[in-house]
């Protein structure tokens, strides 16, 4: 296969959600370099095509009547209403006493899953979609909890998506003030006296410095942390977590709770700072002294500044990006290069885009191709893109995808979904991968008939030609041995035309069930 076609294919699989005929053509026409420039600086919002698909999407919602709670039965195909709403609008789903069914309250999560899959399949801004996926894992929240679910549209739109290729400190600050994170890691209920440490701990361990910088053996000996006496501690200890938890007291949401003097907060779900919740006394965080009683939110903002610019954060984020985009065991040299770009551009509005450029232009991107396991959502998106198949996201399909182990916006642990092959290639995971591919091609979950005759690449007539053409489309290259294996097991002659559309679909399914399609 000539190199000119290989490069666009790899660009699609390594930096996007898989190769579609349209994107292959786009990259071929523009050249990789111009395509990448555009990918790194996409216009905000969806392109017209994707936007219209999201606007016309319908997702079924169904629940039984509950007369005791004045809830009537519902069973309808409903547009995606929550995605454009503000937090104060979606928050009202929680405030109906018992009169709102839980299915309505978690509905925003399901709507966001539909929009996310549609964007993955159709958006020309593939790299942004990959970054949105990455940051949702990095700043994981769990949307099966209704209070998180109603906050997801804002979280996705105004926090993750807005800053996905922007500045890390901006992103970190937006996450810290997001309703979704304040609820998920409990900072909204943290109060002076005995602060809730959940957010502070994961801020250090998962959002910024990383567990490699957790020097727990120094627990209470901050002076013993290398560099601490020069004001540049190489890592963090438990005391930093405790003190940072104090720094963020008062960062909460308008959830109708009572503040000092019997005043009640409104019920909007919006971020707010409540000074009477804040522990204002002096603190010491990462070897830095914080004076007592500083202006509102100054403690928290300074913690975010310290962790966002800590060298360990650059290494941790770079390591995770390289693991996501290159391979499970990140080459240290590349991580160092990427971390350096991240660090040098700490004040750039497009810090993350510049960091991603270092990854997108690294030779390792090509050298290590085929070593990353596609996770289930990526597998089905890549399948729809490769087939050029109009996949309708149904409630049944989301159920199957959730059951495959990848629960978009629903992973319970704050780590986000795992990102290594071992977690996604076990026996059960392999069964589910094959099931997902077969189910889409055979329309098991109402996702739409795969129009195999008209979508099969033109100029192909025999079984052998058809399998080879689909291999080229889905895997980027032909594999005569595997093609023969498929036809032999299907008892189909190489040189005859396909018997019927069912057999044709099976043939395509087997190509996508092969090892090559499980990886990128």
């Amino acid at each position, binding site marked *: 296969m000539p190199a000119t076609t290989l490069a666009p294919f790899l660009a699609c699989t390594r930096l996007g959600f898989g190769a579609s005929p349209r994107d292959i053509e786009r990259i071929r026409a523009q050249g990789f370099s111009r395509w990448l420039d555009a990918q790194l600086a996409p216009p905000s919002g969806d392109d017209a095509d994707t936007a219209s698909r999201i606007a016309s999407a319908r997702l079924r919602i169904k629940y039984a009547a509950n007369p005791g709670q004045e809830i009537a039965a519902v069973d309808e195909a409903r547009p995606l209403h929550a995605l454009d709403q503000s937090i104060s609008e979606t928050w009202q789903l929680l405030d109906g006493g018992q009169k709102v069914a839980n299915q309505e309250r978690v509905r925003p999560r399901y709507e966001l899953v539909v929009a996310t899959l549609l964007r993955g399949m159709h958006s020309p801004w593939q790299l942004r979609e990959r970054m949105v996926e990455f940051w949702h894992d990095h700043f994981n929240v769990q949307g099966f909890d209704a209070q998180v679910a109603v906050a997801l549209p804002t979280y996705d739109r105004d926090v993750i998506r807005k800053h996905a290729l922007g500045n890390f400190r901006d992103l970190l600050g937006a996450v810290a003030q997001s309703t979704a994170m304040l609820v998920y890691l409990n900072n909204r*209920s943290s109060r002076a006296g005995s602060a809730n440490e959940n957010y502070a701990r994961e801020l250090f361990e998962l959002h910024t410095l990383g567990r490699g910088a*957790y020097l727990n053996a120094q627990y209470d000996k901050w002076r013993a942390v290398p560099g601490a006496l020069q004001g540049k501690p190489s890592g963090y200890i438990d005391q930093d977590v405790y003190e940072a938890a104090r720094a963020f007291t008062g960062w909460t949401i308008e959830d109708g709770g009572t503040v000092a003097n019997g005043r009640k907060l409104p019920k909007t779900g919006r971020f707010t700072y409540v000074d009477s919740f804040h522990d204002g006394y002096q603190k010491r965080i990462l070897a830095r002294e914080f004076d007592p009683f500083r202006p509102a939110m100054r403690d928290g903002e300074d913690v975010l500044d310290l962790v966002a610019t800590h060298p360990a954060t650059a290494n941790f984020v770079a390591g995770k990006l390289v693991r996501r985009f290159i391979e499970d065991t990140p080459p240290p040299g590349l991580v160092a290069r990427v971390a350096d770009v991240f660090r040098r551009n700490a004040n750039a509005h497009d810090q993350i885009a510049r960091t991603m450029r270092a990854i997108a232009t690294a030779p390792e991107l090509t050298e290590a191709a085929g070593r990353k396991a596609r996770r289930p959502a990526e597998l089905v998106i890549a399948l729809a893109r490769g087939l050029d198949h109009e996949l309708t996201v149904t409630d049944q399909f989301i159920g199957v995808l959730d059951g495959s182990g990848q629960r978009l916006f629903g992973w319970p*642990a704050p780590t986000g979904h795992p990102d290594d092959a071992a977690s996604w290639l076990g*026996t*059960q995971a392999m069964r589910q991968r094959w*099931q997902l591919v*077969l189910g889409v091609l055979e329309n098991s979950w109402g996702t739409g008939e795969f129009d195999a005759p008209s979508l099969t690449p033109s100029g192909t007539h025999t079984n052998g030609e058809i399998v080879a053409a689909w291999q080229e489309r889905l895997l980027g290259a032909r594999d005569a041995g595997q093609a023969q294996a498929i036809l032999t097991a299907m008892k189909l002659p190489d040189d005859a035309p396909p018997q019927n559309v069912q057999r044709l679909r099976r043939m395509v399914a087997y190509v996508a*069930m092969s090892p090559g399609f499980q990886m990128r």
Partner: protein
Amino acid sequence: MHMKRRDLLKLTGSAALLAATGLRDLAFANEPGAGDTVLVFLFLRGGCDVLNLIGPSNDAAYAEARAPDLRVLDSGDHAGLQLLTGGRDDFRLHPEAAPLLELYQQKHLAIVHATGLADETRSHFVAQDLMERGWLDNNKQRPSGANGWMTRWLTEIGGAHGLARAISTTGAVAKSLEGQRDALCVPNLKYGYGVPGGDEARAVLSSLYAGPGLAATSGRDAVAAVAALDARLPRGADHRPLPYEPAHGAQYDENTDIGTALSTVARLIKLDVGLRAACVDMGGWDTHEGQPGRFNNLAKNLSRALAAFWNDVASEQNRVLLIATTEFGRRLRSNKSNGTDHGHGGATLALGGCVDGGRLLGPWPGLHGDALDRGVDLAVATDYRSVLAEAVAPTVSPAALQRIFPGFRAEQRLGLLR
């Protein structure tokens, strides 16, 4: 009824079984004997607030540190369930843990309090990794190879591989079984465990996955394993797997993950597929906020699932040993979110026919200021590996025990097993 291989052959039809067999079945002829221990490792993920599960209900420091709905009470409508340990402290179980009290009174369940890592980590992920690998301390010597402690145990006991020697009920293989290449992930057997697409797909996939590479190796293992295990499931006339009927009227709550997981393990034990090691997860224990209601449910679901499991495996009780533990306990003093933050000392439960149960084991460090770890947390009085080591000691030599838990020295004998 303990089902023998020949019964299953009749049930599934030997032709179907033979058609489904791969290399794995060669080992099947030497299937392990019925007396071989099955070790079930249940991980309570998130850091179980063991002081809310098994509390010294009359301890003044305990009462001082927490609101009544965050501790086990010694009197009143919500009083805890008395363990009658005979000591000065009145240890009681959470009121929702009645099924655990029953197992304890039947002497099948032993509780080791104040277990944990010597390492001071208060990170979930560091602590879980250490425990699943059988290490003590993040900063000291580690065994060569990063495999799970159950993997090392399986290597030491040797023996035939069977169809499902090691399983995880999670989507991915638990780290305790890291490096165990034939470990299967079996979250559920309700809908069978076959290769999607039927016999033709199985044949295609066997060829497609014959080559080298990570995905190919995984897929090859999966095709062979799932087909062989699937063939062992009893099926109705319509070839669908028959619904599972637990023995002795055991009732699992299938709406809970832990109920489904333990019923799957029990079923595999009784299917006679050579199961020796099973890893089960129960999440949700990271109760930083709104703990009382959440903990009620957790205690209830855990206790009921363990009791159902125990009834269900009644015919195999002499060889089943379940160990449940958590990465750390939680802070003695509650926070202002009506929850508790990460602490240090935890607890470990052991359930089995060979367990010398009905006892609270291990030294109790107490909850007064000086006894607390860093002045705030329940101290670790028993290395968690003492429990694991005593659990597997009858199955391996002392030298092998050292290979499973490198550097481990028992400071005191708990007397976990009879």
